[in-house]
Structure formats: C-alpha cells, structure tokens
C-alpha cells in the first residue's frame, strides 16, 4: 500500500501547471475578454440603474402582460418588485438580473447551435455527453479557482462559471428536441421540396421549439442558482449580501437577501414559461 501512496499521480499539479501556462501564454487574450465583458455588463447595469425603478417595474409588468395575459401574474410581479425596493435590494436585483440574462444569452447563443449540430451528428453527441456531465457535476467551486486566476475578480469569472454550469441545459434540450422531431414531419418537409437549411428552419426548429424553450428556462434558473457562488469571486448582485451575512452571522440580512432571490427566481420562472407548456402542465 505504501507504494501506492508514495507514487502519487500529480493530477492536481498537472492542472495547476496547465492553468499557469494558460495565464502566461494567453494573458492578453483573457484580459481582453475580461475587460470587454466587464465593460458590457457594467454598462448594462448602469442603464437599468438609470431607469427609475417604478418605470422599470411598469415595463416588466407590461411585458409579462403581453406574454401571458394574466392579471394575477402582473399583480404578483409588481408586488414582489415593490417589496424588493422596500427591503433595499433594488441595485443588487438589477445586477443579478443583468448577470443572469447575459449568462443565459451567451449560453443560448452557443448552446442551441451546438445542440443542433449534435442532433445531426451522433458521434458529436457521444463526444459531448461526458463533457456536459463533467461540467454539471464538478462542484462549481472547483472551476471558480481557475476562472478567478484567468479573469481576475469581478463579474466576469462569475459570468464564465455560470455559463459553464448552465450551458449544458440548452445543449441537451436542443439536442433532445431536434432529434425527437417526428420522422413523418421530416419526410413531409423533404417530400414538399425543403432544402437542408429550409428543413432546419421550417420543420426541425419549430418542432423542437417547446423543448428548446424549456432549455432556455432551465438555463435561466441554473444561472440564478449560481448568483451566490458568483458573489464569492466578487460578482455584484443579490449573492453579495448573502455571503456578507454568512460571514457576519447576520440572520436578518441573510433572510431578506434570500427572500429577494426567491422572488426574482419566481418572477423569471413565471415569465419564461411558454403559454403552450402552461397548457400541458
């Protein structure tokens, strides 16, 4: 047994060497990404902060009304957001929302095409599946460390970690949706003269849309679940007060911030649910 422990495989050291090498070799590249993303997110936060809170609430409520035509939902959204203002977490909420929406945007931007490609090429999905499993099962704190080293403190490492964690959902559900399109619909598309791209845009994507939308919703919820963890590497938002409350054993602050996160989660979930999936559910 001694032999086994004496000859430790330097797995962790290898990873460290690799990350160090990345930092040395591509510092400019990662700095560029970090600065660009940081600027974009800060700008977005500034814009939403500049809008008077009541006007923003009205905008969100109107949007929800047009999507769902539900008085109850609109009333709930208005009440929940007013409560958040009252508790004093408006700025943090905006920061969180911007982080969640940007992470989701990037995840969907890359995840959906990857999912489509995987559905059309079985070998690609065979390669992707273990990677996706890995991305979702490795404890998030573990890849927080290299992202922190590569991108520095702030929004960006939080955003990148969130994307790594959340992108699996749109990839998987897009793959599922596109590969489950009924063969008769594909045959009908071909029989009436679709080209490959027409088949994708006119048959496969519309048929897979409920599944893709479920992926987007899931992606949003996964991103939201990362806000507290992202706060550990300095991303502003509702996670910050939670972390601070944890460090100072502050029950009241922790509870208030927790309630705010839950409210944001419910609002996002209700808004994102597509009307059709509401009928089915």
């Amino acid at each position, binding site marked *: 047994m001694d032999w086994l422990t004496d000859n430790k495989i330097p797995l962790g050291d290898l990873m460290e060497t690799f990350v160090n090498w990345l930092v040395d070799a591509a510092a400019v590249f990662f700095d560029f990404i970090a600065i660009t993303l940081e600027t974009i997110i800060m700008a977005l936060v500034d814009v939403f902060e500049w809008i008077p809170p009541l006007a923003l609430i009205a905008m969100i409520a109107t949007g929800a009304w047009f999507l769902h035509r539900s008085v109850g939902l609109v009333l709930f959204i208005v009440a929940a957001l007013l409560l958040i203002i009252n508790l004093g977490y408006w700025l943090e909420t905006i920061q969180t929302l911007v982080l969640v929406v940007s992470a989701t945007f990037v995840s969907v931007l890359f995840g959906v095409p990857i999912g489509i490609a995987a559905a059309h090429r079985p070998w690609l999905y065979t390669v992707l599946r273990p990677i996706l499993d890995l991305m979702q099962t490795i404890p998030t704190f573990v890849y927080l460390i290299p992202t922190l080293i590569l991108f520095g403190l702030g929004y960006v490492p939080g955003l990148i970690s969130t994307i790594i964690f959340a992108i699996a959902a749109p990839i998987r559900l897009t793959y599922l949706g596109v590969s489950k399109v*009924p063969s*008769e*619909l594909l*045959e*009908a598309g*071909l*029989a*009436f*003269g*679709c*080209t490959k791209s*027409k088949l994708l845009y*006119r*048959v496969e994507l*519309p*048929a897979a*849309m409920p599944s893709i939308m479920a992926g987007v919703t899931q992606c949003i919820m996964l991103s939201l679940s990362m806000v507290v963890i992202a706060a550990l590497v300095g991303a502003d938002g509702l996670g910050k007060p939670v972390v601070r409350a944890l460090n100072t054993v502050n029950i009241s602050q922790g509870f208030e911030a927790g309630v705010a996160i839950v409210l944001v989660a419910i609002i996002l979930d209700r808004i994102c649910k597509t009307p059709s999936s509401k009928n089915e559910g």
Partner: protein
Amino acid sequence: MSAVVQIENIDIVFGNNSNKTLELMDAGGTRDNILSQTGDVVGVHDANLQVNEGEICVLMGLSGSGKSTLLRAVNGLNKITRGKCLVRDGERMVDMGDCDEATLRHMRTHRVSMVFQSFALMPWLTVLENVTFGLEMQGMSKKERTEKATQQLKMVGLDKWADKKPDELSGGMRQRVGLARAFAMDTDVLLMDEPFSALDPLIRSQLQDELIELQERLKKTIIFVSHDLDEALKIGSKIVIMESAKIIQEDVPEQIVLNPATEYVEKFVAHTNPLNVLRGNSLMTPVAELEVRDGLHIAGDGVSLKLNGTILDKAFVDGNEVSVLKWDTNVNIDTLPKDVVLLVPLDISMRDAVEIRYHSNHLMVLEKGGECYGILGDHHLYHALLGKHFGNDEDAAA
C-alpha cells in the same frame, strides 16, 4: 397510354452491407436468411411496375411487405440500392435514384407530392399555412399561394377552418388538409401512404368517395398504399400485391378477386366484400352451357327461356309465361315490377344484381346489344358472396 412512373428492377436494401446483400438476393436468398447473414433488411426485391397517366395504382400487402418502401422510392425519400425509378418530367424521364439535389427538389416541388398516413401536418402552422408550405417551396409569391391554398381548402370543404391549428381538427378533417396540401402542388403524381388507415370506417369511406370524385375531375396519376383490399378494390384501377419485398401479382381489381395468384392473395380475397368488384359476366353461366329441352333453355330456379338465335323471345316460370323487361343502370330498382324476368347489362355490378334478384324474385339474363350472353341466378350470387374459388365455378354449376 403513357407511363408516368416506370419502376425498373428496383432493389431497396436498408443496411451497410448492400453489395453482399445484393449478391445474396441474386442467388435467391430469402429475407430472413439475408438478415441473419448481413444484418441488412431487404425492403424491395426486384420490383417492376409501370403506372400510366390517370391511373390509381394501389400497392397492397401486409405491413412489412415493402409497399411503403417502394412508394417512398418514387419521390426519393428512400434510397434506391439498384435499379431505376423513372418519373416523367415534361418530355423526359428522370431517374429519382440517380439525379442531383436540384433535380430531386424540382421533381418534389413540381412532379410528385405526397399524403401521409398520420397526416404529417406541422402542428405550429395554421391549416392555411400547412397547405401553402409546399407552394412556398415551389417559390410562389405569398399572395398567389394564399389564393391557391384557399381555393384548395374550399375544394375539400375546409375554407372556414383556414386559421385553425391542425390539433383543433378531427382526424378526417386533418387528412383533408393533407389532401389539399398535396393537390395544391399541382403535380402529376400523387403518392398516398395509407392515407385513410388512421380514420374511422365511416370517415374513411367518405374520404375514399371524395378522392374518387376528385380524381374524376383532376385525372392525376396516383400511387396508393393500402393494407385493406376492400379499399384497394374500391379506388384502384390497378392493384399490385406485395409479399415480403416482392411484387407477386399485378392486375385489375376484378381479376385479383377472380384469379388470385397465390394463397397469400387468396387469403386477402377471402376477407373482402365482392359486391363492389365483381361484374355479371365473370359470374354468369354462359347461354351455350345451358341444358336445352323441348326447344327451351333450362336456366334453373324453375325458369326456362325460349331463345330465337341469341335474342330472348319468351321466358317461362314453372311453365307459365312471364313478361321480359330490360333494365338499364339509370332505372331505380325499386320501381321495377315484380314477377318478371329481367334483361340486365352484361357488366352489371354484383351489388345491383343482388338487389334486382331480391326485388324481382327471378334470375337475370345478361345481355349486350340485345344479344343474350348468360344467366345470373341465386347459385352464382351465393358463390360470389362466399368467395369460392372462381376458377372451378363452371364445374360446380354443371
């Protein structure tokens, strides 16, 4: 008659070892044999078929017999492993198994369209949008295609449902949309893959009637897949019967019923209703075979006939003369007088014959151009209803 679809020695194999499989097929290997040796499934084995303009050719067989596979070769949905599938494109014939992407698309948008068993309507499009789907692929302008689709929906009686989604429609209505979508393409050839199988019997028969009616007006060339011989006999002008990947009989409906080529076909025929298919001339006993006694032809069932050459002169029932009346297909059978011997057309449908027999109480004499050809009595009708083997009919009648 000119061929619109010409299938020449087609083999279709599903699997990765098609070279080996083709060798085995040529050596006469059976489907099961080939499957266990190469892992390939033989879909169609050496099929030859010509479908002419205006014909409804019905591909018949049990599931797995290769009928849908053969149908899908005609618009290139199934890859042809060997052989040719020629489809007319104006003056030329295009081989669907061996043409480039653009030609294939041209054939699919302008020459061959298709109706599916489970409708295959896009659930996210409205009824109208579903019908315009193919027209859009033809490159038609939006205004034009909406106009055309509306017109097609009117034809199938669904113009009021244009803005509904397919899942708001009943099965029969959905398949009408499927028909409208295919007819809208204005292609010469229509492929129908068991289009009515998923429908209730009443709706099915109604749609069959509508299809026959549409076909009378539009004169398309239709290849229709069915596993129901009654349906095949009703709508087909030619029936092709397939069994384990091979075509085993190709004939007009009546001949399929009268002369089944194998036991397999016979089994199908045994379960059909012959009323719609059989005609008097294939059931009758010819006049020449009747017994002649005292100058009278003895027709059986107590009826004897006095013939003047081939012209019917008088008819007697149990020795008493009864009047002879001629029936034409446009005369309502209920208005015929009782107790007469009727002269009916030689190609009278069996359904009419049974009804006349029920009404007049006597056997019928078949005529054409005034000349008598044969008699049709209870014996013939019972025989036909029981689906007896018609080849031996004369022996039984004697």
